[in-house]
């Protein structure tokens, strides 16, 4: 059985990317990531090459999931914003709609207040694009349905 796919097309991807780029600049951030709640990296802006983005995505999702579990225990739906303060860099993690997580990494050149402000704005725009992506996910096209057993077998050669 299948709970369906979450599909991001070129169009939504470019829109996500545009919003991340603007957020990066407006918040004076070092790097921003958009992550699926299941722990997969979707898009990033800034100097992502310096990070192990796969691990980061998985742990950010685990972080949101775990604090969400804590939230439920005290009768909250979830904690939609997490802030981790480091010696040099800080991390702001927030939930976007039902599916996504926005991660902003910033240092002294910015501040948590500014990041929070810019994230709020970006989240509104990301939510709209997310809604488009979810609508499109119900109507997939593009080759996966043509996958054969032989294709699958070829992965293991």
């Amino acid at each position, binding site marked *: 059985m299948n709970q369906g796919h979450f599909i*991001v097309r070129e169009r939504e991807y470019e829109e996500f990317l545009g919003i991340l780029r603007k957020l990066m600049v407006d918040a004076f951030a070092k790097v921003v990531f958009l992550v699926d709640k299941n722990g997969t990296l979707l898009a990033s802006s800034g100097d992502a090459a310096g990070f192990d983005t796969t691990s980061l995505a998985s742990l950010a999702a685990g972080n949101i999931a775990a604090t969400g579990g804590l939230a439920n225990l005290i009768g909250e739906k979830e904690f939609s914003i997490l802030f981790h303060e480091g010696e040099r860099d800080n991390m702001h993690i927030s939930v976007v709609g039902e599916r996504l997580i926005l991660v902003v990494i910033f240092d002294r050149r910015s501040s948590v207040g500014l990041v929070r402000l810019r994230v709020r704005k970006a989240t509104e725009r990301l939510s709209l694009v997310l809604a488009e992506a979810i609508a499109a996910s119900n109507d997939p096209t593009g080759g996966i349905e043509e*996958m054969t057993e032989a294709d699958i077998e070829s992965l293991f050669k």
Partner: protein
Amino acid sequence: MSFINYSSREINCKIVYYGPGLCGKTTNLQFIYKRMNPEARGKMISLATETERTLFFDFLPLSLGEIRGFKTRFHLYTVPGQVFYDASRRLILRGVDGVVFCADSQLTRVDANEESMENLRVNLREQGYDPDKIPMVIQYNKRDLPGVASLAELHALLNRRNVPEFESSAATGIGVFETLKAVIKLVLIDLKKGAR
């Protein structure tokens, strides 16, 4: 719920290793990590206690090549097996595309296996899955030890759905890749069905 990115042409799927504490879930991932080509795997993350018991999860990302122009990526997770970590197990099952149920073949662990399988079914249902339909394989681990239950017994106890099943000795790697390959196949077949 698999995540398909048409822009970067990637398919991402989540596979969870489930089973009672100490049955060998982490050992499976460690063996896969050791044997995979470094280009095909990312870093393995273990959120564990000081005594190496899994606290939250282990995570190992794999990328296995392309199908029809799509890169295929599989994120392997293990759950903590101890009964009292049920809340964490439920979180890790979220969005899962396929399950490996890892059983401990030792006679002394018969009850623990059954309990864990029941717990898996309850938690899957809670996440909105049908436990009789989700892609699943069963691995009977620790076949190298003395005092293990027979395959027929384990099958009767744990495999009422009659899913693909494998004997293994994860500590030496026997059966580990057969299990992985089988669950990946089921996940991709399911993905294809969902895409229609």
